């Protein structure tokens, strides 16, 4: 390569770099917003946008464990085998130093689903269909629920009267459901987990009464229910804080004679109940057995392990 060639090559590279800088500046969010609003305002009014019936593919339908975005991988089969074992976003490839568009979009879609799960409410019709007794904590809305955990574990006097009126005193088991941080989890799992639990308990000769549904529910609200109903075991099914893997994960918190102010260590928890974790029906069958064990041993949480 002679000197002239080298010079022209360097010039070309420099031109590319400078060009990049310019486009990067345009690509920065603030300036691009300005620019796009600018173009819209000059668009002739006669040119109306066309509405089509087309539907964009739902990118959250893609099974991430089967999607390998690395171009030309050394060992595709091995990579996919590894991906089978984890929901982590491995092998997403890259566009320069950044994520590919599909990866960024999927991340935002999953994040949006997680936020929706937190900020939406369990459908009232669903509560009716499942024959749940609707009650709520002292929180007045989602914002207060998020910012005041203390209120999410307390009930008003009237509410306590409602609970008493609708539950059996000193029952063997009191089952309750809480929206917690994912209403989506409640709607996704309840239809399958409740009958599995009740069927399992029936096998041990344990009957279950009315099931409570608590809006704006934090886990320790079950302690209040324990005190009010004097049930032997309280089982709370509650939506888990959603992540990017699923927004539909549910936990069961179960305690033997829970009471306000008891140590957290007295709760037994079965988490990760969702379609990609422990199936709801199987979890229900397991929970029934766990409740029976708690009654036999008169203990829960850490005490049960010893």
């Amino acid at each position, binding site marked *: 390569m002679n000197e002239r060639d080298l010079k022209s090559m360097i010039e070309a590279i420099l031109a590319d770099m400078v060009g990049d800088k310019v486009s990067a500046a345009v690509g920065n969010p603030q300036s691009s917003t300005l620019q796009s609003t600018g173009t819209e305002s000059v668009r002739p009014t006669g040119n109306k946008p066309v509405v089509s019936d087309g539907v964009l593919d739902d990118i959250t339908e893609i099974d991430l464990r089967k999607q390998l975005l690395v171009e030309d991988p050394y060992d595709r089969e091995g990579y996919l085998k590894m991906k089978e074992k984890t929901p982590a976003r491995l092998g997403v490839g890259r566009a320069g130093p950044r994520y590919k568009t599909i990866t960024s979009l999927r991340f935002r879609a999953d994040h949006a689903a997680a936020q929706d799960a937190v900020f939406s409410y369990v459908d009232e019709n669903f509560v009716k269909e499942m024959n749940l007794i609707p009650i709520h904590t002292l929180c007045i809305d989602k914002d207060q629920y998020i910012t005041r955990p203390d209120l999410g574990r307390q009930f008003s006097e009237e509410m306590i009267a409602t609970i008493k009126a609708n539950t059996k005193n000193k029952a063997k088991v009191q089952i309750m459901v809480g929206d917690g941080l994912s209403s989506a989890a409640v709607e996704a799992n309840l*239809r399958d987990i409740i009958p599995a639990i009740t069927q399992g308990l029936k096998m041990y000769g344990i009957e279950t009464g009315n099931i409570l549904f608590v809006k704006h529910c934090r886990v320790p609200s079950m302690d209040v229910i324990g005190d009010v109903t004097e049930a032997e075991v309280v089982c709370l099914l509650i939506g888990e804080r959603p992540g990017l893997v699923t927004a539909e994960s549910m936990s069961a918190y179960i305690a033997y004679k829970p009471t306000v102010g008891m140590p957290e260590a007295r709760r037994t928890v079965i988490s990760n109940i969702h379609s990609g974790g422990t199936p709801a029906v199987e979890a229900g069958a397991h929970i029934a057995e766990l409740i029976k064990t708690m009654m036999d041993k008169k203990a829960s949480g850490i005490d049960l392990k010893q």
Partner: protein
Amino acid sequence: MKEELLSVGIDMGTSTTQLVLSKLHIENMASSFTVPRIVITDKEVIFRSDICFTPMLPDNRIDAQKIKVFVEEQYKKAGIKKDEIQTGAVIITGETARKENANEVLQTLSGFAGDFVVATAGPDLESIIAGKGAGAHTYSKEHSTTIVNIDIGGGTSNLALFSHADLLDTGCLDIGGRLIKVDQHTHQITYIAPKIEQLIELKGLGQKIGQRVTTVDLQPIIQEMVQLLEESVGIRPQSEFYDTIVTNKGLKLDRPIPCISFSGGVADYIYNEAPEDVFMFGDIGILLGRSIAASPLFNQMKIVRAVETIRATVVGAGSHTTEISGSTITYTEESFPLKNIPILKLAWADEVGSEQQLAKTIADKLNWFKVNKDLQRVAIAIEGKKNLSFQEVQKYARGLHAGMAELIEREYPLIIIVHHDMAKVLGQTLYALLNYEKDVVCIDSVLVDNGDYIDIGKPIANGKVLPVVIKTLVFN
């Protein structure tokens, strides 16, 4: 929570009988905040017995009495009592499995060796057990690759193909070190197995019984045997004799196999130099081993050193036969162990149809298991679904309940085996349908197929799981 299971493996092969004791380590790998997940975390061989010749009676039957004495001696040597053995398997392999009293000896011995020591036999199972004992299964997993293990014993070569920890295929060829026997001193051929005789004739090689031979004289026929092995793993086009040499089936060979390992008695002479006296065992085993080492099998494929050679099968029987059921299961009685239960695996099409179809298929297929119109115990196996609704569980349970009516009449518990994680809820649903009057054993996370048998041991890990052995019982 950590627990240990003491396991025994006994291999009664064509030429030798041996025994190993293994420790299986069991642990709950799930966090405290989820349903338990109990798995075997480690397997270690803690005792290897002497190797004795498989004792035979004058009438060509297996001498069970002598084998019992051998087992007792080895237990004493290992310093363990029979009652301490919690699981394990006796496998009868090669020529020995074809003896008249093979089944009888196998059953007596499995009962004698320990309460939950199961009886196993069959060429496919032999291949799998040897391959796992040789470490091929683990190698395929750790190196994310595909590997074939050939266990070359006295009478047969057993092939097992593993890919990324999954068993893909098995095969068996009538090629082994003792198919031609040569007198240690006179170097006269004393025996040629029928199929090898056929091969000699076909190729016009001329070796005969009574002929005094040198290694050079034997080379042509040994070369033929090696070439058949090359054909069996797909690095040489299959010859006309290939189908004849295959015992029951060969590998399907629908993809190239990058790696190979060898086990069995002959393997020692593949990996190691030959001793001075190549006829020291009175057979062609050493020569066969050396020829394989000089063949394309050794040059064209990546050679993996087996972790066990002559003991691969017995280690496989001791360490790799016992599995653990899923950790959320149902059993309502404890009359374990349940032994030698044949499996009826339903077709997927029947499973996803209506519950009436499911019931009818079960009822129909149960007829296969009738001996003199009397129904044996049968375990019903289904695939199940990964994530099913409570309604689907009930559908499955009603279909099974109706289809198994005839089994419900029997004194045995109903045994259901599901692949996917749903056995606890399915078992509870069935138990409810049976008015809690008929016992149910419903386990999951176990893969079985038609033709398999299952043995189920006493509960372990605080009763959360059941140890199981999936096996075949095929005598030629």
